């Protein structure tokens, strides 16, 4: 197998683009796709600080690596979810990555804040772990980025993440979520940072391959709480379709984005945001989802957690 660009020995085939690349040409392709996303979707400029949500997994570390190589001013944000050995290994990967490159980062620990990890918190508020985790991560990432004066929050969501999320939203006709599923979410309130997904043009396998080629040491294990997650079911379904018809995921997601842009021009989305009566952060309700969750935790679970500790 030969590189389609320079005819050297190829190391990866990309069936969705009907091409194959050698290591240098693949590396260039990956960086180009990220730059195309940043510039094409006007995600951020070189004068803005970018907070990067880093879990210790391949996507977030690759994103951080590319943004810092491209000369953007970044700050890593890591949330220690308190899931035993998995969280300890994840944090060590983030610390080792940042220290080797002299990159700044901050860690927010759920155990330090709430006295419990995400698994106990989710049990305490009677919610699935991924649902409680999403609320806590979204709230804290925005708040911490804002506190550190970073106007932009970048996450490592890739094409597979976005296509599978789209499939889930379409299967359940989640119109509200469909409206908000975009590579760029503008800061529609002064206390909200702009949220961007610079890896959305790259497939999960392309990102993992780039991480291996660049010798980025990431956590391969999956979050123990994600076992049985619907997202895996949607990804599996899409991978089977992709195997039979390469390019399916790309077409599914990018054609959705084209339709979304056309819809937004006809009737622009005006989110009805106010400030949470409890914490003052932007919310669509009187009390934001995070404060509701913490309130439930304090009422129902914290006495029990304190007995346990």
């Amino acid at each position, binding site marked *: *197998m030969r590189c389609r660009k320079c005819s050297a*020995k*190829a*190391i*990866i*085939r990309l*069936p969705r683009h009907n091409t*194959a690349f050698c290591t240098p040409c693949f590396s260039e392709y990956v960086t180009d796709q990220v730059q195309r996303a940043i510039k094409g979707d006007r995600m951020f400029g070189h004068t803005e600080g970018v907070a990067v949500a880093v879990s210790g*997994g*391949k*996507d977030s570390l690759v994103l951080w690596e590319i943004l810092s190589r491209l000369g953007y001013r970044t700050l890593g944000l890591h949330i220690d979810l308190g899931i035993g050995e998995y969280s300890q290994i994840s944090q060590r990967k983030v610390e080792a990555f940042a220290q080797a490159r002299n990159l700044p980062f901050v860690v927010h620990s759920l155990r330090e804040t709430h006295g419990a990890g995400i698994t106990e918190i989710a049990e305490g508020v009677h919610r699935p772990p*991924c649902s409680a985790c999403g609320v806590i991560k979204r709230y804290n990432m925005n708040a911490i980025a804002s506190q550190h004066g970073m106007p932009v929050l970048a996450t490592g*969501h890739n094409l*597979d*993440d976005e296509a*599978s*999320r789209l499939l889930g939203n379409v299967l359940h006709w989640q119109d509200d979520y469909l409206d908000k599923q975009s590579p760029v979410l503008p800061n529609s309130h002064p206390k909200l940072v702009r949220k961007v997904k610079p890896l959305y043009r790259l*497939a*999960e*396998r392309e*990102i*993992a*391959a780039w991480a*291996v*080629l660049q*010798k980025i040491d990431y956590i*391969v*294990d*999956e*979050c123990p709480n*994600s076992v049985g*997650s619907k*997202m*895996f079911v949607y*990804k*599996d379904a899409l*991978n*089977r379709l*992709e*195997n039979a018809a390469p390019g399916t995921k790309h077409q599914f997601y990018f054609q959705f984005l084209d339709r979304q842009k056309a819809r937004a021009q006809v009737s622009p989305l005006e989110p009805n945001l106010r400030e949470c009566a409890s914490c003052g952060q932007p919310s669509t309700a009187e009390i934001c989802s995070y404060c509701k969750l913490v309130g439930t935790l304090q009422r129902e679970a914290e006495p029990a957690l304190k007995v346990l500790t």
Partner: protein
Amino acid sequence: MKILLHHPPREAALKGPKKVLQVLRELEILPDTVLVIRGEELIAEDEIVDDSDTIEVRPVISGG
């Protein structure tokens, strides 16, 4: 050849030599869902894996 698999961590063995794509077919793994790594090097799907090789089949799918 020795094959190191994840989720859960386990080992498998197949007779070589074989192309990477053939190895994945026999393991019933979709090529788009994994990387195949020999030593620390990524290997392409048309590479030959010998009997004496150890390869890691690393999943690329995460919970998102």
